[in-house]
């Protein structure tokens, strides 16, 4: 059956990052932070599910990450994904976008018969927005980035609106294609209660003992994991060794002090501040 692949990443909730979250080698200590579904990947999944329903394509969610990332895969099952895949191997650690996109592209190839790949526009931790396009390049798919609306979809094409920054663009493209989806594109659905009941016990093979594994298998609760060897990947192109960029130094951002001049909030205070603004303003203008 024809497939849609949604690329999803578990990310630390960057709204609450402390210095302890970084390891000395400059890589991220994800364990130290609450982990969430990358927000725009939920928009990608929503788009995938609605297209899947319309065209009868299977929706597969793929994530590369540590075992804990199975959480977002379970969430994907709750929302309605047909299949989910965890790609996990110690040798994938510290990958930059080139190495990440190599692994994800190989996963798409391994799934076979993929018509559409959907990624979030950007992950809120690495913030590069590079992984989507770099996957498209490796699997030779057309791409449309910054998708703000799915206007039309049929078995052989989609019509999309793209945020072209100075203008918005209405674009028609055939399959196969990779889209990077923005938060504006849709409102992700809530997890479905029946599916939550069906999958709340889902987990990795290692989460089950011998006894329960059999039952888990029968119920489709075992989330499959692919390692570097399962996928037959070149270790030289994965993780740190496959990454041309290296994090050389990390600095936490702190407030820089200024000489703050506070004015009263009464009329006199405000008038005084306005005078200062105008005076300064005239000075800098000159």
């Amino acid at each position, binding site marked *: 059956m024809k497939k849609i692949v949604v690329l999803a990443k578990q990310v630390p909730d*960057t709204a609450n990052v402390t210095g302890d979250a970084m390891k000395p080698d400059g890589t991220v200590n994800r364990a130290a932070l609450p982990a969430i579904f990358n927000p725009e990947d939920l928009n990608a999944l929503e788009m995938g599910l609605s297209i899947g329903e319309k065209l009868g394509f299977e929706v597969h969610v793929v994530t590369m990450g540590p075992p804990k990332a199975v959480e977002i895969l379970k969430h994907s099952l709750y929302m309605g994904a047909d299949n989910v895949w965890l790609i996990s191997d110690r040798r994938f650690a510290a990958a930059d976008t*080139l190495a990440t996109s190599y692994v994800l592209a190989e996963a798409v190839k391994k799934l076979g018969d993929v018509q559409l790949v959907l990624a979030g526009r950007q992950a809120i931790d690495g*913030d590069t927005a590079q992984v989507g396009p770099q996957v498209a390049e490796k699997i030779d798919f057309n791409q449309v980035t910054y998708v703000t609306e799915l206007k039309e979809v049929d078995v052989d094409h989609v019509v999309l609106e793209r945020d072209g920054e100075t203008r918005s663009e209405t674009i028609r493209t055939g399959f196969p294609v990779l889209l990077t989806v923005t938060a504006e594109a849709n409102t992700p659905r809530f997890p479905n209660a029946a599916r939550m009941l069906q999958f709340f016990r889902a987990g990795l093979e290692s989460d089950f003992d011998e006894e329960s594994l059999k039952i888990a298998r029968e119920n489709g609760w075992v989330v499959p994991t692919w390692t570097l060897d399962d996928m037959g990947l070149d270790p030289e192109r994965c993780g740190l060794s496959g990454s*041309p960029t*290296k994090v050389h130094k990390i600095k936490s951002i702190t407030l820089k002090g*200024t000489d703050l001049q506070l*004015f009263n909030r009464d009329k006199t205070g405000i*008038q005084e501040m*306005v*005078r200062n603004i105008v005076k300064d303003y005239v000075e800098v203008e000159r």
Partner: protein
Amino acid sequence: MKTAVFVEKNPLTNRLRDVSMELAWKAHSLMNEHKGEVVGLFVGDRLPEDTEKLFQYGIDRLVQFTNPKLGHLHSIAFKHVLKAMIETEGPDFVLFGATHTGRDVAPLVASAMKTGLTADCTQLYVDDFKDSGKILYQVRPAFGGNILATIVTPEHRPIMSTVREGVMRLPEQGLDRKPDITTFKAKVQPEWIRSKFLSTVAKASPVNFQTASTIVSGGAGVGSRENFKLIFDLAHALGAEVGASRAAVDFGFVDKERQIGQTGSVVRPKLYIACGISGSVQHRAGMEDSAKIVAINTDPDAPIFGIAHMGIVGDMKEVIPTMIKYLKEEAE
């Protein structure tokens, strides 16, 4: 040593985007110091009408490929042509604007050339790195703006980076130079064109932060779309542009085009007035280099006061009307 700069234009006006000139000047400063050359790389339907400005801002030579089929962003075609240009020119560094075009195309080129690409750099400098000789040090915010990371690409060439508009500065005065333009030979293959652009619509009210000397911004503390009119009124009284925090945009007080910060515009006006804005790292990433910062906030502990030069602890709904009144008096 050689640096290449991806040259981009605004398709609506057929004029250069500011970021291309900013990158040209940055590349010029870097190459001046290290006796290198700056080449511009342009791909599109026709050259921008103000192409000569590139040379004033430090491009030594422009390599251009124009084809009527490339009026729109056909990513795959751009990738192939740019890769061929880069292979011919052999630059050490390639800089792209972190625009919706640059961030679409640069990752494709980096992937095809199997080299590193560093996103959204805020500082670039050249220095020695171990046995790799001189490389580009690329400083960028990550982790939602909570950290500044210095990224290096020691063993691969070219070293590629993207930089957002407004981050690098333009000099007051450009150089006095003659254009030097060479035409690149390529053939657009039919399989490079896979999207059909059905229509394009110019975005309403283009906000002009780059030329604004004053910006008045409102945040969640403004409270409503109606109250946001006060921000526009104050801006009007100052002849300023209107900006916003992401929270104000998310609440629907103003359009997204006005967002300032890590995921909005980066601005550096002479005067920045933040009203009802707490001053999150993400917001500061877009405005903290403003020459003078004024904060109006009910919370004396709001982080915005940590970077402000002047401030009033108070309700913007009361402070702004009084400010407007006195501004009018001062103007007389």
